[in-house]
């Protein structure tokens, strides 16, 4: 396999692996735990690297997962004291752990061979160089195996606890009442988040991890309703994002992690604007439609009330009576004519038969 193809494969696998915990975090409104965990695991990675091996070594992975658990535990502990809110606890704990990590790097830098830039920004471009070799056989890039393993773990959790996760995400109180232990599930999701952060970290860096976890899931949530389709659509969007990001980065020779993160955000923004029902444009169209419909109703009722009275049915009267602007009045008249509920003839508006019926209905509706 060529290096760019391997990078694509690693990136796509990582994206899908990130989507699983990411979607659950987004639904549970804990999206920023991904940010906190991806930064807070730094001391664990440093200690793991000092204990043996590189950033992708099992020691570093174990250290990172452990640090992630410590972070989650500390946040829980601080919130449980009742002295601060969850977001304050998160915003307090992860910088402290990150600080500890930075200081460790500074103190042990010589032994650790750890570049903090690499930790934050990832080394996806070099991932194909780090091969997994077993018994003399080249089994492909190590990152591919790590991402695949984490993806498998995520799939295992989602498949085995699908019903419980769904209930915990959409109706926590009910799931608590059913004895499904949503708190325990949250913990499991956070463990999965730690694992995924660590795996993605090596290749993607902490910032891209945040983008991959949140953006595709939040975008998918604007498109679909069900958890299953949410996961599927989010995975698809994630893969599209990273692959287009890779394309952009190669074409312009720019930072791989950066352009992938930007593409995640752009894909999200596209969905945000264009989603068929919950997108901004669709909502605006819907609102405009309701507004037009209401204006026509208002006009029809007015005409019905004052039928035969001169002076009440001139188009110029509308701006004064309803406080409409000229364009608003013209728009409403056009709309009414198109729907065949009114007619304009030598500067007088008349109800049609259909218009009379609709005005009466509108009055009954109130």
């Amino acid at each position: 396999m060529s290096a760019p193809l391997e990078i694509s494969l690693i990136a796509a696998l990582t994206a899908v692996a990130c989507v699983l915990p990411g979607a659950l975090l987004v639904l549970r409104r804990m999206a920023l735990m991904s940010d906190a965990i991806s930064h807070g695991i730094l001391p664990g990675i440093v200690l793991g690297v000092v204990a043996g091996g590189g950033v992708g070594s099992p020691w570093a992975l174990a250290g990172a997962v452990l640090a992630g658990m410590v972070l989650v535990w500390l946040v829980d502990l601080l919130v449980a004291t009742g002295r601060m809110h969850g977001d304050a606890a998160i915003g307090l704990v992860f910088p402290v752990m990150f600080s500890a990590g930075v200081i460790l790097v500074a103190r042990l830098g010589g032994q650790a061979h750890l570049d903090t830039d690499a930790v934050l920004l990832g080394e996806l471009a070099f991932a194909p160089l780090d091969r997994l070799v077993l018994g003399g056989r080249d089994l492909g890039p190590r990152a591919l195996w790590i991402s695949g393993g984490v993806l498998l773990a995520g799939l295992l959790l989602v498949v085995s606890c699908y019903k419980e996760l769904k209930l915990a995400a959409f109706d926590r109180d009910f799931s608590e009442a059913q004895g499904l232990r949503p708190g325990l599930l949250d913990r499991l999701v956070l463990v999965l988040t730690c694992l995924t952060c660590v795996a993605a970290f090596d290749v993607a860096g902490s910032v891209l991890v945040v983008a991959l976890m949140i953006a595709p899931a939040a975008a998918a949530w604007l498109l679909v309703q069900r958890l299953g389709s949410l996961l599927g659509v989010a995975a698809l969007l994630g893969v599209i994002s990273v692959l287009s990001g890779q394309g952009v980065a190669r074409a312009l020779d720019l930072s791989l992690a950066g352009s992938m993160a930007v593409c995640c955000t752009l894909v999200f923004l596209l969905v945000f604007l264009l989603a068929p029902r919950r997108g901004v444009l669709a909502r605006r169209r819907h609102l405009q439609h309701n507004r037009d419909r209401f204006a026509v109703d208002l006009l029809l009722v007015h005409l019905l009330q004052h039928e035969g009275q001169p002076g009440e049915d001139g188009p110029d009267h509308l701006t004064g009576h309803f406080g409409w602007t000229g364009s608003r009045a013209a728009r409403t008249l056009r709309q009414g004519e198109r729907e065949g509920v009114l007619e304009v003839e030598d500067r007088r508006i008349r109800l049609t038969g259909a218009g009379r019926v609709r005005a009466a209905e509108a009055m009954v509706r109130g």
Partner: protein
Amino acid sequence: MPVPWWQDYTLRIVLSGAALLGLTSGLLGSWSVLRRQSLLGDGIAHAALPGVVLAWMLAGRRDTGILLLGAAAAGWAGTLLIQHLVHGARVKEDSALGIVLAGFFGLGLMLLTWVQHRPDAGQAGLETFLFGQAATLVARDLVWVGGTAVMALAACLLCWKEFKIVGFDREYAASLGLPVRRIERLLTALLVLGIVIGLQTVGVVLVSAMLIAPVVAARQWTHRLSSMVALSMVLGMVGGVGGVLVSAGSERLPTGPCIVLVTALLVAFSLAFAPHRGLVAAWRRQRNSRRALDHDRVLAALQALAGQHPQEPAHAHPEAVIRGMVPGVGVSVVLRNLERRGLARPEGQDSWCLTPEGRSRRIHRTGMEETR
């Protein structure tokens, strides 16, 4: 002989910078913690990167003022985008924040690699931006930090009442006819400024701690907003100065993380030892009330036993009997305490009876309801 720190010019600059920064973030963080937007600071800090790089590209040199301007513009754009995302469609605040944070930061990285490809590229400033470099503060930077501090202070003094009402109860503020959106925008603008000047000192990742930690620490000591904000400013300064001194004491201790860790120590101390909200105080209160309840329960048991012998009020009862009546209480310790208070006295081997005083003592919390 090394120069003591108060005579070291560079260190004095850095110390003043860190103190001013701590003061400003303690002040501005109060509002974001109060409004439960603690993590907004983290988002703004990340979002500032593309602004820094763009300003650098356009200006062609690293001038603090221009970089700060760029950072502020990008940070402001980030907060606007977050608001649009939250109001525009079904996107929750945490998701919007995360997306903007990562997207803007990614854009900054792209721009940065682009700058580095250009032949005239100087040293990349990424390291400074990510981790802050308090040691590189010069006197001219102090003008910016000090200016921001003065501006933030003036705004908070002028709009104290408005900030307070909006911070505690947005709906009430709106019902009073206050321009809530404009006040919130002013608070956010101040926050952006505070974060932007913090970037240079502690870096992107750690700015959020600078905003939150002094506030959380100060909150434990007081219930009043005014004293909390004042204390938070002081604690921010203490954290800044302490962190700089700690990192100056050793060769390989980066300043930003030291400041954060020192401020975090202040939080830990406050959480533990603050007089009312402190965990130790709470634990002692709980222990004292449990002890008082235990005393009353044992006393009530003794009175009930004495009631069984109306003719002989000083009839003694074995400790085991009493223990059976008040399960879960360390009876022997309590009995000894009662003896010290002159309410009960031992009689022979492990038997106890009430003194006249103990018999006449009225008990309000008997804890006997469930045993009856």
